[in-house]
């Protein structure tokens, strides 16, 4: 019985949280799943039944393999488990096959892979040193952070209802972040190096050197691996690159915090480069040998798609499109525009992939690239000239993710998770960050609502959203109750506005006569409303980062 007590852990709140959310995921198995379910089934079939040389050429299904090679290998390994569940799902020609066993296997594979995510969250909680207020468990930053990450609404609905494998990928990312934080990882490592009888396996000096250095390398390695799992993480690669170059390759700073050029360590640069190169070689090498690299890249970066997804992700371009729409309507009313010159597609905007602008200039991929780079640059400069340790890195990483989300080409609404999850780590540290996090999370999560449009899932998404939002706002308010309120009246008003918006879009609009004539209005409203909030959060975060680094400079001087 004693052993059982320890195993189930009385007071072991972390395992209770993790197990609880895992059980919730199991309950979500019979829910609706999107076409991504078929996408992943198809990839299982491709990797299982075809030789490597065919992986990136196979096109029987419209859902061709468009993730980097590591993900393909991951599917390959999964497929060897899948064959014990249902051999039929591994047939490339068995399109849209979804037997109950296939469903169980795929759903459970996502749930199982989330073990990595849970581990990463645990590691993150170890290295976060948030504000220490009350002694109550529910008010500890670690507890709040683990709920915010483990029970994240976005991950739950995207992975376990909509169906994708983001959980373990974010797990890799959080793990690499945690490794960068754990520079003083000596106790952990020495515990590993010392064997169970307390004898040192390695000479002490060596363990010390390893203990101080290994964590950065590990972080870099994990991130490189992650990039070869899913290339969307390229968005945050600049932050990683600059941070490692600045804080790892230069071993010392001048007293005022600026760079000491002489401290540049060639060994470290080379070892970093080697890690990244080896990982890439492992991933892309086989395709280089087969002379298929151009084909792989053409699959990975399909620039043929439109500026915005069918449902506009709530970013800058959503606002831009909406403005264009408003201007064209006004123009038509005031007779500035000739109705015959207006392209037909724009009348049903939101339903057609290619959106043609009527008044404002059309946007090309190159323009979005330049915008993104311009948006990212200041944060990178901050990180380079004013590195504020791992926390500064985390802010820069969030900004990179958000900026790319704001200005990227063909951005999915799901990409907002890339900013929300790292931002969670920041939120338990400072009241200002918490306020930005809450605005970003609430609007970002709300913008995921159109992913689930079937009636049975409506209560689930509303309940889970309320659950997460009420918890995150209340717990962070309790954590920072001694400081000034987290929201001003405008922000409160904006966030409360999400409620009526949801009621209008899902409960009122379907009963009005506009449903047939303008079916795109709910999506348009959602995306524009959320775009305002996300832009605001992005702007506020940017301002706080820039002000912080400016204050840091004056203080030092």
């Amino acid at each position: 019985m004693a052993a059982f007590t320890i195993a189930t852990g009385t007071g072991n709140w972390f395992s209770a949280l993790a197990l609880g959310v895992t059980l919730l995921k199991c309950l979500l198995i019979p829910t609706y799943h999107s076409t991504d379910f078929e996408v992943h089934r198809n990839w299982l079939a491709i990797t299982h039944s075809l030789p490597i040389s065919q992986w990136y050429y196979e096109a029987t299904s419209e859902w061709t393999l468009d993730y980097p090679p590591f993900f393909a290998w991951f599917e390959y390994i999964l497929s060897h488990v899948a064959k014990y569940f249902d051999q039929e799902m591994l047939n490339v020609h068995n399109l849209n096959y979804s037997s109950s066993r296939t469903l169980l296997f795929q759903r459970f594979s996502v749930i199982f892979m989330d073990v990595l995510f849970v581990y990463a969250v645990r590691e993150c909680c170890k290295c976060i040193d948030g504000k220490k207020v009350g002694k109550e468990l529910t008010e500890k930053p670690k507890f709040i952070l683990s709920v915010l990450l483990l029970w994240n609404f976005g991950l739950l609905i995207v992975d376990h209802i909509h169906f994708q494998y983001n959980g373990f990928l974010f797990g890799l990312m959080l793990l690499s972040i945690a490794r960068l934080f754990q520079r003083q990882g000596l106790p952990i490592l020495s515990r590993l190096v010392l064997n169970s009888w307390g004898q040192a396996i390695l000479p002490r000096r060596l363990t010390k050197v390893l203990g101080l250095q290994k964590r950065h390398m590990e972080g870099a390695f994990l991130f490189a691996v992650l990039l070869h799992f899913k290339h969307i993480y390229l968005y945050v690669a600049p932050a990683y690159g600059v941070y490692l170059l600045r804080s790892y390759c230069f071993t010392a700073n001048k007293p005022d915090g600026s760079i000491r050029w002489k401290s540049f360590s060639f060994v470290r640069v080379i070892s970093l480069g080697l890690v990244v190169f080896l990982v890439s070689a492992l991933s892309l090498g086989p395709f280089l040998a087969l002379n298929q690299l151009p084909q792989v890249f053409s699959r990975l970066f399909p620039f043929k798609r439109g500026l915005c997804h069918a449902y506009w992700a709530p970013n800058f371009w959503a606002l831009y499109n909406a403005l264009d729409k408003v201007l064209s309507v006004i123009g038509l009313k005031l007779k500035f525009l000739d109705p015959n010159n207006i392209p037909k597609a724009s009348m049903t905007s939101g339903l057609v992939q290619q959106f043609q602008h009527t008044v404002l200039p059309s946007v090309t991929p190159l323009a979005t690239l330049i915008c993104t780079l311009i948006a990212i640059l200041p944060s990178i400069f901050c990180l380079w000239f004013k590195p504020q340790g791992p926390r500064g890195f985390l802010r820069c990483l969030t900004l990179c993710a958000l900026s790319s989300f704001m200005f990227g080409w063909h951005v999915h609404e799901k990409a907002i998770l890339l900013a929300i999850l790292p931002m969670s780590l920041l939120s338990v540290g400072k009241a200002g960050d918490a306020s930005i996090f809450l605005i970003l999370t609430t609007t970002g999560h709300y913008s995921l609502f159109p992913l689930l449009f079937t009636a049975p899932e409506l209560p689930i998404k509303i309940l889970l959203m309320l659950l997460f939002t009420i918890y995150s706002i209340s717990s962070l308010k309790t954590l920072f109750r001694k400081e000034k309120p987290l929201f001003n009246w405008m922000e409160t008003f904006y966030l409360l506005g999400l409620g009526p918006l949801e009621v209008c879009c899902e409960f009122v609009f379907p009963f009005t006569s506009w449903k047939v004539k303008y079916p795109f209005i709910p999506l348009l409203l959602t995306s524009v409303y959320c775009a305002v909030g996300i832009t605001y959060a992005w702007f506020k975060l940017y301002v706080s980062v820039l002000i912080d680094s400016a204050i840091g400079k004056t203080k030092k001087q």
Partner: protein
Amino acid sequence: MEKWYLMTVVVLIGLTVRWTVSLNSYSGAGKPPMFGDYEAQRHWQEITFNLPVKQWYFNSSDNNLPYWGLDYPPLTAYHSLLCAYVAKFINPDWIALHTSRGYESQAHKLFMRTTVLIADLLIYIPAVVLYCCCLKEISTKKKIANALCILLYPGLILIDYGHFQNIYNSVSLGFALWGVLGVSCDCDLLGSLAFCLAINYKQMELYHALPFFCFLLGKCFKKGLKGKGFVLLVKLACIVVASFVLCWLPFFTEREQTLQVLRRLFPVDRGLFEDKVANIWCSFNVFLKIKDILPHHIQLIMSFCFTFLSLLPACIKLILQPSSKGFKFTLVSCALSFFLFSFQVHEKSILLVSLPVCLVLSEIPFMSTWFLLVSTFSMLPLLLKDELLMPSVVTTMAFFIACVTSFSIFEKTSEEELQLKSFSISVRKYLPCFTFLSRIIQYLFLISVITMVLLTLMTVTLDPPQKLPDLFSVLVCFVSCLNFLFFLVYFNIIIMWDSKSGRNQKKIS
């Protein structure tokens, strides 16, 4: 209360789990000609909407009683009527007379599930939250944890949202809970009104009636039958009669009407037990076929005697020493006696025992958790029939984890925390070496849990031998019955030995 937000979170978790379970299959899905309880509820909506009140309980060409005729009290019928009006508004096909038989569709399922959720949200959940807030002597955090555990109790969720029982348990149990709440907070009139509603919603609530009666009578005695007590008694009687009259008004017009409703409510000719129930008679049936040996009326008398004898001590004790703690325990033991010994028991009736056990969860967490696990397990054959294996396992585990983390139940197995202190002291007067009680109970728990897990695994994976097709379900019932007997003894011991320590505790509070 600064932590109200955690209570909101707890309620939302409860609701989410309820809704996710409701995405699964229901009883009798796609199984003509009789379908299942789901069809029964839909059929009642059809009947109550299309026929005049006078014909609801009578067999006629429009109302074929053998096909899921109404066999619950009037309040259920009114509720069905209310649902029918909503159904009519959404899609009249759902309740069209005759033609809608066996109607099944995704939208209709959604509608039915929503009616359950709304009823639950209006009646049961507020009662649970309020009950936990009214608990004394524990911290806010514990109150919230308690609410979480009660809301996650898998038995109720699985029967109401998975199996879809034709009668909404959350409504009847919710009313009963409001009754308990009222009576223990000294709002006796409101409490008895709520409980009358519960009885008028589901006649099985009579399992709880005796403790209510005894507790209120005891209160009256305590106040002095010549003064305040008598006034209270008269008031209570008026409330009860008035609420019954109101509910039964349309059926009091003719004698035949009332009798027919009563005949439908208490179908004594249906035999000692049906299907597989984890009570004494069904378990005993394994060794001796009582049902065939004894004549019908003797079975009736026998079951009545057993039930009456088993609940008598606890009830007398409650009249003599009315206390809200004793009241809750008596609720448990009475309901359990009824479940084990009475006539015509359904396996789902165990929920009537589980509700009061949920109420004592914070007082004896270890035993309550154990009982609630067994009660869910006892419905396993039913849940398997409805293809609810996955949600059953998942919700049971969730409930178990919630109990373990919020009450750390494994550290609460001392005699004192099992409330067996005074019992073992009095046993030790005769048997000085009687010190191993809590150890025994721990081992019994382990054995019981292991048996349940093994039996579940066997039922799911193995095929029963051809000669004994019901082997596993009989085993499940038998094992649960043994557990329940043990619990009956345990709860009676607690009740009977409560006086000495109970009075001291009351003084402290």
